[in-house]
């Protein structure tokens, strides 16, 4: 009788034992937070960015924006599974990973990345790989062929996004050098901004830009999307701590401060310069603040974030005017002056405000092995310039190739007048 009871007791322990052995080092709290952040970051694209961008184009093109965001979410996700994650996060290469994790080979329920499940880490990163190409569509909006967008996304992720991710987060040369990029100033914002600028120049201005009539069709949609971006960014930067702790909280706090400051700064600047504060200006300042704090979010303090948000508002404001008015480049949704310039500015400022010697404006310290602000800023500059130059050249070549394969990247004059929703998708956004 006792023997039977004892055997039953010991046998029943088996599932518990194997369970514990499978997942010995996964931290529940950290995992919960990153799970949540993953959803928040996807929310930034769908529908945050989709609505933000959608409202800014003409009504006959609103679906093309929404469609491109959804399609990119699909394509980028599949790409990430098949080869993207592997190229970014495997191997010991200085410039790119290898194919060992193709099709998420080796990523099982039990495998870990740090102290969270590897499947979660890969998924979290996937949402970044989704939003980055989605940001670029602002550069060629209202005149691009849909097929060109899809092909461009795949090639760009393969040859620009994955390698640069590897350089900065996947064990590559910039990470080795001590580049501070917490959540994607270089990986996401500089790359997207530069790609948008290059493709905007290559595809040429919209007819409406030349004519001087590119007013948004639905500002309420844009402001709605902007709100979603602010909230979602808490996951973008907060989640990049990959932990549920003080680092994540501080990252979230400085993110928020920079967003608020960027918004108010742009609003006041516009008020002073043009006489009235605008809704679009305020949310654009908010996005500038958010993009700029992104690389610095894990390294700076609240007071530093105030300065960063302020500079983002002022500098990105002027960058926007310069691109539009001085250089007359039709980067339709201002991706370069807001994300590109913001990303460069933030990556630079991370090197300054990470310092622990700035009194109230101090941060959490430089990268391991780096002792001075000068040295850190130097590394930041290397990161900025290398990302900029590589992205520019690669994007140029990729867009050229896409044009050859899709028989031109731009729709015809007539099609542009008719609107992409009808021409590319046989649909109408509104049936009023």
């Amino acid at each position: 009788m006792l023997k039977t009871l004892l055997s039953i007791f010991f046998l029943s322990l088996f599932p518990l034992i194997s369970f514990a052995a499978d997942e010995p080092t996964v931290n529940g709290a950290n995992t919960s937070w990153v799970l949540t952040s993953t959803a928040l970051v996807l929310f930034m694209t769908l529908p945050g960015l989709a609505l933000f961008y959608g409202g800014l184009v003409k009504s006959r093109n609103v679906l093309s924006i929404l469609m491109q965001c959804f399609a990119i979410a699909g394509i980028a996700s599949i790409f990430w599974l098949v080869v993207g994650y592997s190229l970014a996060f495997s191997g010991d290469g200085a410039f790119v990973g290898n194919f060992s994790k193709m099709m998420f080979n080796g990523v099982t329920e039990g495998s870990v990345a740090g102290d969270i499940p590897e499947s979660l880490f890969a998924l979290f990163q996937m949402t970044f790989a989704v939003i980055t190409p989605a940001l670029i569509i602002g550069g060629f909006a209202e005149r691009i062929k849909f097929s060109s967008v899809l092909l461009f996304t795949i090639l760009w992720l393969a040859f620009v996004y994955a390698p640069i991710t590897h350089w900065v987060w996947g064990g590559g040369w910039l990470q080795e050098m001590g580049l501070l990029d917490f959540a994607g100033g270089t990986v996401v914002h500089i790359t997207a901004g530069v790609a948008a600028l290059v493709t905007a120049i290559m595809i040429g201005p919209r007819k409406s830009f030349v004519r001087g009539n590119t007013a948004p069709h639905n500002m309420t949609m844009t402001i709605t999307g902007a709100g979603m971006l602010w909230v979602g960014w808490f996951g973008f930067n907060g989640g990049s701590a990959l932990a549920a702790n003080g680092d994540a909280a501080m990252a979230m706090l400085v993110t928020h401060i920079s967003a608020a400051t960027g918004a108010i700064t742009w609003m006041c600047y516009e008020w002073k310069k043009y006489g009235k504060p605008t809704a679009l200006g305020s949310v654009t300042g908010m996005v500038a603040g958010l993009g700029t704090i992104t690389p610095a979010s894990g390294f700076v303090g609240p007071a530093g974030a105030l300065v960063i948000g302020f500079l983002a508002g002022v500098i990105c404001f002027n960058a926007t005017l310069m691109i539009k008015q001085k250089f007359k480049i039709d980067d339709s949704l201002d991706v370069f002056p807001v994300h590109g310039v913001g990303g460069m500015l933030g990556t630079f400022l991370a090197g300054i405000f990470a310092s622990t010697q700035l009194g109230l404006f101090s941060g959490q310290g430089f990268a391991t092995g780096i002792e001075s602000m000068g040295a850190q800023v130097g590394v930041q500059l290397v990161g900025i310039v290398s990302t900029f130059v590589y992205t520019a050249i690669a994007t140029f070549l990729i867009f050229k190739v896409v044009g050859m394969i899709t028989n031109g990247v731009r729709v015809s004059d007539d099609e542009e007048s008719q609107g992409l929703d009808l021409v590319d998708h046989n649909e109408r956004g509104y049936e009023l």
Partner: protein
Amino acid sequence: MKLITAIIKPFKLDDVRESLSEIGIYGLTVTEVKGFGRQKGHTELYRGAEYVVDFLPKVKIETAVDDERLDEAVEAIIKAANTGKIGDGKIFITNIEQTIRIRTGETGPDAL
């Protein structure tokens, strides 16, 4: 029979409608239009890009009246729609060849 076409400022629509029903004219067709005569437009600003919007929103009212009621109808409209400022609008009078009530087939002034 005469067709009165009045282009007025949008916020005056309710006043004009009331004014016409006070004298017993109830049938109206209203369209939202844009246009300009001498009234200047306004500017809008989007991220540093300024747009001059020439076209101003207006409302077009069409109502068909018997010849005898024309003058009082026009007067009612003017009284209600006038603000004294540029942009108040215009009234056009055209002759109607025939009017038919779809439900009954009545024609002429009986169909008004």
